């Protein structure tokens, strides 16, 4: 250890961030544990479909308890910081509105952009930390030649989380450390055991932290009811791509592109949602083959590896977390918009999800699918 720094660690109470804190501490850094209080799970408890018992992830008291125990075990100061207001404004509310507009949102990316690498990074700086470390599986490094901070895929491709981090700017990347970027999950659990962390065997979180049980429809109902707002009527027609009305639906927020079940239309061949027209409250259905498309537009694009797209660029583009990045050409189509043209048609390009552009391991940038 040559150069000890003061490093704030974003601790969620999970294995990854706990191990990060323990690693940095073992390396001799001056480590400060921080957990963000983002959402009061109790708030919607008792609403239909919401659990009475609060056992959700990342915003729950259990996770704060776990993080606090780790901090105590490894001997670092630990604080919970309250960002509930910002979380509701910048993550929960947009999440609800995206669904009501017929899109399929990714709250984790919003949380990274607006909370973890914004609010928490500010707190980290204010309390004297040189950098913020998180348990994300991703790599960040400075490229002398380009004079830019690069975001790169994790060595363990199966755990790579860069899809959720495309919104980070140069300033944020320069202050961020991802100590797990070169590690595999089993290796992280081994380390956690070696450090004597009681939560070494804790299961990974899978769902959206503020949506208990993963049922987003019930969450929308409970959230709006808690706010004293009525669920807007987004019911309308089920139509074919040719415009033929084949049925009715109870609300566009109940659908996502590529969905097959629950359409309530009996036909000979299987039907899928191929598009949602929010303005007309129409859900467009069609056959499997109609789900495929070669083009998409992304807006609110953030570029990381390059400062601008001066000319079309060959990249691989990922259109959802579990999608395998597919070869494509990207070109600027005005303002912060980018046109993506895939070499091969891609299945179920879904508005509201992110399109993230890769050059090998390097994240070129990304934007939101329109």
């Amino acid at each position, binding site marked *: 250890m040559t150069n000890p*720094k003061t490093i704030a660690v974003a601790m969620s109470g999970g294995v990854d961030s706990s191990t990060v804190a323990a690693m940095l501490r073992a390396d001799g850094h*001056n480590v*400060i544990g921080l*957990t963000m*209080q983002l959402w*009061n799970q109790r708030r919607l408890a008792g609403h239909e479909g919401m659990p009475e018992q609060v056992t959700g992830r990342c915003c729950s*008291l259990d996770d*704060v308890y776990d993080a*606090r125990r780790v901090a105590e075990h490894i*001997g*670092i*100061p630990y*604080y*919970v*910081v*309250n960002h*509930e207001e910002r979380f509701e404004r910048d993550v929960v509310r947009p999440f609800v509105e995206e669904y009501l507009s017929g899109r399929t949102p990714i709250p984790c990316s919003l949380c990274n952009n607006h909370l973890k690498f914004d609010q928490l*990074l*500010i*707190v980290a*700086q*204010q*309390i*004297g930390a*040189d*950098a913020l470390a998180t348990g994300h599986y991703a790599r*960040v*490094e*400075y490229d002398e030649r380009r004079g830019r*901070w690069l975001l790169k895929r994790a060595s363990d491709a199966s755990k790579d989380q860069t899809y959720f981090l495309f919104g980070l700017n140069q*300033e944020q990347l*320069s*202050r961020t*450390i991802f100590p797990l970027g070169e590690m595999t999950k089993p290796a992280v659990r081994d380390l956690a055991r070696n450090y004597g962390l009681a939560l070494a065997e804790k299961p990974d979180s899978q769902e959206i932290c503020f949506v208990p049980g993963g049922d987003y429809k019930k969450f929308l109902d409970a959230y709006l009811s808690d706010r004293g707002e009525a669920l807007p009527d987004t019911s309308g027609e089920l139509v074919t791509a040719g415009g033929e009305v084949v049925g009715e639906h109870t609300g566009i927020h109940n659908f996502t592109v590529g969905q097959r079940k629950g359409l309530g239309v009996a036909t000979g061949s299987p039907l899928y949602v191929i598009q949602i027209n929010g303005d007309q409250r129409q859900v467009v259905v069609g056959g499997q083959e109609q789900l495929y498309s070669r083009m998409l537009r992304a807006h609110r694009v953030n570029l990381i590896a390059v400062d601008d797209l001066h000319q079309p660029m060959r990249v691989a583009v990922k259109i959802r977390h579990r999608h395998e990045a597919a070869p494509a050409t990207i070109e600027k189509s005005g303002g912060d918009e980018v046109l993506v043209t895939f070499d091969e048609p891609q299945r179920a390009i879904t508005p509201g999800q992110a399109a993230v552009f890769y050059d090998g391991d390097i994240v070129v940038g990304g934007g939101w699918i329109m």
Partner: protein
Amino acid sequence: MSAIPRIYLDNNATTPVLPEVFEAMRPYFGEHFGNASSIHHHGQETRAAVERARDSVALLLGCRAAEVVFTSGGTEGDNLAIAGLTGAGDHIVTSSIEHHAVLHASRHLEDMGCEVTYLPVDGHGLVDSDDVRRALRPNTRLISIMMANNETGVLQPVDEIGRIASEADVYFHTDAVQAAGKVPIDVKRIGCDALSISGHKMHAPQGVGALYVRKGTRLQPLFYGGRHERSRRAGTENVPGIVALGKAAELAMQGFDRQNDKKMSALRDRLQHGILAQVEEAGVNGGGAARVPNTTSIYFDHIEGEAMVISLDLKGLAVSTGAACSSGAIEPSHVLVAMELRANRARASIRFSLGKQNTIEEIDIALALVPETVARLRELSPAYRKQAVHS
């Protein structure tokens, strides 16, 4: 982590047990271990100790020993008084700046069929006694207004409220947890029927407190069991804690004789004036009202109190802001919110509260740490510093 000197200016949260208090309670863990209800020698020893402590607490409050009920602390005293003096259909008058022990107990009683009026406060954090008078209804049974506020230290007009209660023939309870040991208390002058105090806010340990209940007042107990505390509070007495509370009450009385409260307010003022002299765009919440001598709540515009508390803690100075929620995260203080401070001041406020153990040297160290921390936070907020950390 490393041993940095620690300065504790959060005595409204809890206080260290004074050495004399600790010495007084120590024998009651070992040699004098009897159950105060036992008829044998061991029981007689501890019974005597409990009753001596009751005398000391009675002296502190200006009441008779028989009017003192020992409790587990302020929260129990508040709950016992509020629930014990009211029933379904009764109306309760309280304020928006009460401790959660009073507020949440009142909310529970609303669920149980009581009506509750939560009075506002003015910009100084003061309840207006005329508001209390106006809030009275034919079915008003209880007024519960605190004696001193935990966030601002502002002393409420309890004497006037006591007169109003007496004229209207309604019960008056006051939560004196933040007043006891800091300012003299006289239940006769206040004219209250119940008054709660807590040991650990006055240099006795956590887990003990007392409730004054005026003689002849009918009080429903919270617990059912043995006939302890004249059937007002069942449960074997916490003898070491009670002995400690008695000793702390004695020391508090001696302190008033020696005008230690004046010394305390001089130390508090040194801190407050020193900060305001060095920091711009800062001021005192409730500074225009009479306050207990150990507390000052200061707002620092353009900072987040949360970052301030963490930064100061990392440098060894313990202060607080607002109230911690169950996760330990900081929520804006409901007291400061009720004062309708200018935008964001509730979030930008820090409470400094002194104890008997604090020294002038500690205050001067705090006076060096606070301005530099405020300057740093303001410099970093909200724009990021423009240099990289990697390399």
